[in-house]
């Protein structure tokens, strides 16, 4: 006689197993501070190898880029030549405008070396790993709690905001990029006259794809808000995580909501997340 299968027992077991996993997933989500000594030890042990492999891969990719994408490099070269000519002209124009003391011009120049970035206590860090799965936009850096890094510390690059720390080991830290759908930033748009419009910038999955960094930030605004293409988006400092006035991006496109009540601004990040190699972790003075 064959073994009798207790279907009810199996169903109850599967139910409680699923329930347990879902509760565990909920309790250990992003920003949770549950102790994870095994994960920390793994990260510590593997980080030197990861760093070597990542820099090796980066060097190979950079040195062979012209071979793999010859046409693209040629086009880029052409575009850069045109850009240099245009920028030379713009530069002359800008000098004249700066002399004229236009406020917007000063702001626009500030994008490329925001003075606000200089006033924070920062720890320089090298990226040693990108997200091992395709499901998150995260990266791992070679600084951890021994360097004073804590969860929720903002992460910036030379041009602007990168993200925030979501988990820390003594020697490494995981950074959630602002491109990720979970990485919202309390922000403000600075118009050409310097007036601020407040809102939330978040990684988008409605336009294009979350998998690519192109056009990956969006901000919901009221229909009457006075914002324009080209306006600068800065952190507002209201969320409690990011300090004020860190550049996030520039508005690339504005679309009216089908209801006519809202509009969505699509933002081009100032930081090139694909080629990012070093970042600063803001550890104090926020």
């Amino acid at each position, binding site marked *: 006689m064959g073994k009798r299968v207790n279907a009810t027992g199996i169903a109850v077991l599967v139910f409680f197993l699923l329930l347990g996993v879902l509760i*565990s*997933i909920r309790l250990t989500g992003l920003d949770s501070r549950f102790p994870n000594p095994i994960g920390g030890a793994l990260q510590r042990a*593997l980080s030197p190898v990861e760093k070597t492999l990542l820099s090796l*891969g980066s060097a190979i990719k950079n040195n062979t880029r012209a071979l793999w994408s010859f046409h693209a490099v040629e086009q880029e070269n052409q575009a850069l030549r045109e850009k240099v000519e245009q920028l030379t002209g713009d530069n002359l124009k800008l000098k004249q405008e700066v002399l004229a003391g236009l406020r917007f011009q000063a702001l626009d120049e500030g994008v490329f070396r925001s003075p606000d970035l200089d006033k924070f206590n920062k720890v320089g860090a090298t990226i040693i790993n990108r997200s091992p799965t*395709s*499901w998150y936009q995260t990266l791992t850096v070679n600084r951890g709690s021994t360097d004073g890094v804590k969860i929720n510390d903002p992460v910036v690059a030379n041009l602007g905001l990168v993200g925030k720390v979501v988990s820390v080991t003594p020697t490494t830290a995981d950074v959630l990029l602002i491109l990720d759908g979970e990485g919202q930033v309390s922000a403000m748009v600075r118009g050409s006259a310097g007036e601020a419009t407040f809102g939330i910038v978040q990684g988008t*999955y409605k336009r294009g*794809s*979350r*998998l690519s960094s192109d056009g990956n930030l969006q901000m919901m605004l009221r229909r009457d808000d006075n914002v324009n293409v080209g306006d600068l988006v800065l952190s507002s400092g209201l969320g409690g995580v990011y300090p004020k006035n860190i550049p996030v991006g520039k508005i690339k496109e504005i679309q009216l909501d089908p209801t006519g009540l809202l509009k969505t601004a699509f933002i081009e990040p100032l930081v090139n997340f694909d080629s990012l190699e070093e970042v600063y972790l803001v550890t104090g003075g926020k």
Partner: protein
Amino acid sequence: MRYLLIAFLFLLSLILPGTVFYFWDWSGIKPDLMMLLVIYLALHHRLLTGVIWGLGAGLVQDLYLGRYIGMYTLTLAVVALFSSWLSQRWYRDNFPLMTLLVFLASALGQLLIGFLSLAAGLAWSGQDIIRLVLGIGIYNAVLVPLTYPWIHRSFMYGWLRYRPKYEQ
């Protein structure tokens, strides 16, 4: 030796997707090497042993990622169960068939991660989930002709050879 080698393969599966495969991704899609390794382990072990490997590998990956503990544990156990169940019906030495098996098992695993992510409150669009499920499934399947012949040979005759207790 066998367990040391498997532990080494686990570590490689954790490290490579974020480093080497970061430069070889297809529009943001990287292979899920841990899932691929669990499928290979399940194909060369009995059902229960395969599922235990899946649970262990999933837990290690969850702890390494440091968030949503249980997501990969459950997923890789289910993937191991599915792969083991299919391998009892499909011929293991038929490489094209194994490529299809890896695609199906990887797609199932990624679909499960997608559902668990939604249950965890992550905002993913259906279109992106489908892209990831198919993309990672295909990427893992593409790696089969490059990796399976070596792994299979090692499991059958080499260092990874599995001997059930009654054979020892």
